């Protein structure tokens, strides 16, 4: 695998929602990143429906059907529906395939009857919890790969939220241990993704399906949610921002293995990914408050191609069922962005999204297109190793945060950041040396098995 060595965009000025340098086209002719923002709705099954394939099929028939119907009701021209597997689906690889097949039939029908353009993404659950199984050789590993095989037959896009490095991450994140984040996210996560995505891309190709992409949900999002809002004291927001910067080099591996996007919605690192690769990305922000809270609800839309709600449990609301409700909202969000494109006001509209959150907190700040691009540049300029590029990205991110006086930090957040920066400076330059150091340092962490990563 060749580590990326150049930026697709030569400046962040060129990056805009709705357009990606390398758009992709789905089975029913939907072009993602082809000039317009498309909503991506993610319904989640109710508890109890995971009992059998039959109950799941019925649940998704309704949930996905409600989303399609709502597009026709309010006039949203196109939609991507994502179903994220719950444990039981991936554990029974045939189930995901059946659900995908059923949804494909629904989409064909809506295309024929109304002219609605829809596409389907299957996201396989990564069952491999690193402290419990051998990542490369376990029943769970086989089920995950088998699920990709089954779903790729019918889905337009396949994705996963992979788990490599999670055991070390969990240990480190609550210990202010920035070296641990670099090791878990970049070194371990990156290696696991290379192993996994080489196979996923193969499977997708064989089935004429699009290999969408991955997300560092397991790590960078855990950090972001722990940092939380303005009254949480779990971890500093500045640490979460560094974890996000680190995640870019990790998530990038999917594309280096041949994935083409659209990237996964919950990968908040996607603006960085887009600046490097030019693939279309899905993002989620304010309209995913149904699934989690964040401090970058608008800015994260600045360069999106798909706009998602992350996940909403199926239930009745006054206006309709929840997937219909969130489809309507996402579609209107997209309509306003697309109107700005038609009017030639997209730059102004983007500036409003950015200004909403640029100084709301570290995450909103570092994910602004200009900063995302700069962090991306640090990634490609330091492509000696997974480790080197992650460390460079994190340090660049830290420099940016410390260097902008409009970004207010509490004394505590700032001191923490300064100490992470010092820690990073003192780390070895070479990946081999860093790995040696970490294998020693973390050898007693419960369940850490270097062989899972070929180490």
């Amino acid at each position, binding site marked *: 695998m060749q580590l990326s060595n150049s930026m697709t965009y030569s400046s962040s000025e060129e990056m805009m929602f709705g357009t990606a340098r390398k758009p992709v086209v789905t089975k029913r002719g939907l072009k993602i990143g082809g000039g317009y923002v498309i909503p991506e709705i993610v319904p989640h099954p109710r508890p109890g429906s995971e009992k059998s394939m039959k109950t799941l099929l019925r649940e998704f028939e309704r949930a996905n059907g409600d989303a399609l119907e709502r597009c026709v009701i309010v*006039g949203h021209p196109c939609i991507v529906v994502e179903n994220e597997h719950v444990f039981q689906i991936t554990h029974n690889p045939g189930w995901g395939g059946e659900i995908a097949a059923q949804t494909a039939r629904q989409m064909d029908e809506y295309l024929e009857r109304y002219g609605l353009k829809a596409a389907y993404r299957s996201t396989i659950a990564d069952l491999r919890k690193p402290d419990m199984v051998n990542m490369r050789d376990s029943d769970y590993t086989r089920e995950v790969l088998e699920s990709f095989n089954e779903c790729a037959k019918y889905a337009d896009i396949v994705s996963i939220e992979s788990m490599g490095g999670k055991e070390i991450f969990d240990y480190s994140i609550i210990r202010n241990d920035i070296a641990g984040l670099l090791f878990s996210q970049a070194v371990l996560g990156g290696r696991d993704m290379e192993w996994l995505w080489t196979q996923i891309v193969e499977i997708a190709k064989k089935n004429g399906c699009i290999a969408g992409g991955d997300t560092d949900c397991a790590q960078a999002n855990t950090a972001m949610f722990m940092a939380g809002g303005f009254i949480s004291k779990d971890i500093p927001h500045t640490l979460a921002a560094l974890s996000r910067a680190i995640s870019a080099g990790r998530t990038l591996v999917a594309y280096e293995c041949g994935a083409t996007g659209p990237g996964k919605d919950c990968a908040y690192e996607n603006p960085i990914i887009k600046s490097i690769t030019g693939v279309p990305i899905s993002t989620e922000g304010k309209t995913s408050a149904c699934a989690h809270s964040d401090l970058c609800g608008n800015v994260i839309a600045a360069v999106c191609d798909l706009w998602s709600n992350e996940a909403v449990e199926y239930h*009745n609301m006054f206006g309709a069922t929840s997937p219909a409700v969130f489809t309507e909202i996402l579609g209107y969000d997209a*309509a306003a962005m697309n109107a700005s494109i038609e009017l030639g006001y997209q730059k102004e509209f983007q500036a409003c999204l950015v200004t909403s959150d640029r100084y709301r907190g570290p995450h909103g700040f570092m994910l602004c297109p200009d900063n995302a691009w700069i962090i991306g540049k640090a990634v490609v300029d330091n492509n000696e190793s997974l480790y080197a590029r992650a460390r460079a990205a994190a340090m660049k991110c830290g420099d940016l945060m410390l260097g902008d006086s409009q970004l207010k930090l509490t004394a505590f957040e700032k001191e923490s950041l300064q100490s992470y920066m010092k820690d990073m400076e003192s780390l070895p330059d070479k990946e081999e040396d860093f790995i040696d150091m970490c294998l020693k340092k973390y050898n007693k962490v419960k369940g850490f098995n270097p062989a899972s990563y070929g180490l």
Partner: protein
Amino acid sequence: MEYPTDTSNIFTRFDINIEVARQEARKVSDDVLLQKVANCVVEGDDEEIEDVVKEAMKTKSPMEVINEGLIPGMNEVSRLWDEGVYFLPQVIVSSDTMIAGISLCEEKMGKPVEKKAKVVTHTAEGDIHDIGQVIVNALLNASGFEVINLGADVPVDEVVEACKIHKPIMVTGTALMTTTMTAFPKIAAKLKQLNLIIPFVCGGGAVSEEYVTSFDLGIWGKEASQAPGMAEDALNKASWTEMRAKWNG
């Protein structure tokens, strides 16, 4: 200000994509006078209808006017509605017209025509959202059923009482609030207790299929337009379980 002329990436006018070609109502009678009666109904012309029906009754019996003019006219209206050509108000106005025509015939006959059967309708206790029920009433009327209209905000016992008295083939309930729809299972339980095994069709914004099919007798009504078809099934002695299997699931 100038608005973009290509809006296809902002919204799609699916209503125009699926616009149904206009259709004329079909001819229902070779008799000029009866066809005129039917036309009045099809066009919902409640001013003309009086003259036209009176004119027809000069040469036809009232029952002929009803059965070969008014009702076939209304059937055409139903067909056009089913096919998406007609909108609700056209159906209602046609129904008003037909009913006005029938009244004239009944006057002449000196007795009312027989209705197909009785249906009791109501909106749940505490709930004044009765537009859904109003539509259901009109459509049932138009299809020849006798509607026992209990109105809005109807206590549970009043619904049960009406069923005891009228022995309808079907009872309907409308509720638009989650705080009022809880009356439905209570009604169903009391009906069962009294051995009044009547299909109980429940609809309205708040009411989900899941909820209605969680209690005996309950059948979920998604659209008011289903009401006549459901009543026909009940008339044909379909049980509530058969009706639920057909209309829900």
